[in-house]
């Protein structure tokens, strides 16, 4: 009986006092389709961390849309790190006081260990000869991308097309609007998310070209068969970042900052970068980028800050009700 009481007291003490030693587990809240990528990253990180620190750690994963994840963290999901695909959703954590305002300077490349860009998936042999954004406005081309009102993916597509058009028509807004309106009219059906758009294109056979992130395009080609589809990278596209951050509020209360930092640093290591590139993400690490050079054709990238003055401005000017998107999205 005394033994039982003692162990109960010990268990209580364990629960009641914050652990003095560093925790050996970490929760990574990530975007919805990153499961396999982080399975592989985690499987490589754990032995690397053990070799360096002699501690076996557990990495737990949570996957959902990043707006959902940001909301959950604000409500108490104890994620030590976030690995998102939308900068704006990390900004929500900054506003909530969970992530420090200078998070983008804590890690290299604006805290984006890898990146991608909107690219094209076309049917094998590219029968319609689609090579660049201009082709999407042709009368004989049917285009598939999800609804920019509901899909972050499609917002990148819209902005990338606009960035191309701004250069092509030398900033003539009337021509840009005319071009974008034509592109939107070429979309037979707007799915709510990227997944639905891929299904519409691949399984329902709709459209001549699907626009989504290059990482998705390349995965689709290898998954659905290079004999059926091929990827096309346009001349210019928009940088799509995959931002990462330490959730300060959580790591400070758990004492897990060192582990969280080591984990995110690992994503920038040669091994971490190689895994990301193997999963069709472009990386900045020169050694690894060279190894995967034939997978990723040259492309000129613009970023949202330079081309559109940042995400806050974009949300207000383009995606708000009655904004610039509504001018060209006449068939919504």
């Amino acid at each position, binding site marked *: 009986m005394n033994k039982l009481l003692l162990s109960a007291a010990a268990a209580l003490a364990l629960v*009641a006092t*914050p652990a003095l030693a560093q925790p050996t587990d970490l*929760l990574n809240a990530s975007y*919805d*389709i990153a*499961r*396999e990528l982080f399975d592989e990253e985690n499987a490589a990180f754990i032995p690397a961390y053990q070799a360096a620190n002699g501690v076996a750690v557990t990495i*737990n*994963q*949570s*996957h*959902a849309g990043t707006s959902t994840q940001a909301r*959950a963290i*604000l*409500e*108490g*999901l*104890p994620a030590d790190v976030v690995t998102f695909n939308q900068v704006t959703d990390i900004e929500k954590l900054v506003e909530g006081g969970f992530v420090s305002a200078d998070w983008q300077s804590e890690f290299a490349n604006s805290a984006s260990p890898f990146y991608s860009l909107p690219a094209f998936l076309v049917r094998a042999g590219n029968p319609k000869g689609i090579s660049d954004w201009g082709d999407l406005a042709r009368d004989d081309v049917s285009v598939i991308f999800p609804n920019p009102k509901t899909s972050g993916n499609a917002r990148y597509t819209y902005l990338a097309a606009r960035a191309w058009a701004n250069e092509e028509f030398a900033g003539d807004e009337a021509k840009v609007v005319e071009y974008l309106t034509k592109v939107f009219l070429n979309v037979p059906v707007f799915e709510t998310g990227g*997944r639905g758009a891929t299904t519409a294109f691949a399984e329902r056979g709709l459209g001549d070209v699907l626009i989504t992130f290059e990482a998705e395009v390349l*995965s689709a080609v290898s*998954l659905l068969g290079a004999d059926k589809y091929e990827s096309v990278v346009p001349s210019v596209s928009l940088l799509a970042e995959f931002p990462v951050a330490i959730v300060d509020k959580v790591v400070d209360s758990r004492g897990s900052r060192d582990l969280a930092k080591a984990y995110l640093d690992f994503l920038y290591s040669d091994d971490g970068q190689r895994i990301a590139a193997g999963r069709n993400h472009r990386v900045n690490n020169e050694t690894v980028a060279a190894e995967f050079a034939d997978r990723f054709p040259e492309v000129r990238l613009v970023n949202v800050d330079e081309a559109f003055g940042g995400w806050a401005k974009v949300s207000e000017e383009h995606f708000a009700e009655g904004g610039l998107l509504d001018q060209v999205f006449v068939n919504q």
Partner: protein
Amino acid sequence: MTRSRSAGEIILITLAVTLALFVLVVPLVLIFSFALREGLGVYFANIIEPNTLHAIWLSVMTALIVVPVNIVVGAALAWLVTRFRFRGRQLLISIIELPASMSPIVAGVVYLFLYGGQGLLGPFLQANSLQVMFTPLAIVLVSLFVTAPFAARELIPLMSQQGTEDEEAALSLGANGWQMFWYVTLPNISWAMVYGAVLTNARVMGEFGAVSVVSGAIRGQTNTLPLQINLLFNDFNVTGAFAAASTLTLIAVATLVLKSILESRRHG
């Protein structure tokens, strides 16, 4: 004796059969054909994948907690509103019904606003290092809420129809309250309780909306079977998703078989 069917009858029968085929049978068959399309080996490998296995375990454990609690609470509520007349009785009946007529997402959001970090009790919970949201406890809580009416809904009509004569007879013959309940009331309502349990179980296992809000979707910790199916499906892991879906379907089938066995025993 045979009778030729009229054209109208044939059309109606054909319509009904076609409808049943494409609305019920084909989707059910598809679940298993997709799950098994890469062979039995891959099927079982998908099921014993640790995270899927954990999701199955978590869903079953949740049901094992929620079903008994809600059966007992449902029976107590049904007892209260059918055996007693009091002010606010109709209101109570409506409140019992409420969770079933509400969208599950509302249930999830309400719990988040109550127990979440920015919710009513959030600051108090955090000050005491208590985590409710995004733990299995949160999943159990919303499941309790969402399925609260199912047992009572089965019991209330039955108990008000049966009336109180049997129980009054038992009492007048000298039974005490517990004896009356065990030997008179319970046998009368046991069948409705089983039915309530089946419905509650089906809903707990299948609940997606409310659970998705409060789960946090931590793999191997708070991912229930429906969430795991959604995750696998979004990953383009169709075989894995359908393998997980087939276990959910099999659990549903097992529940129904169990119900039929109990039913035949009762009549047999």
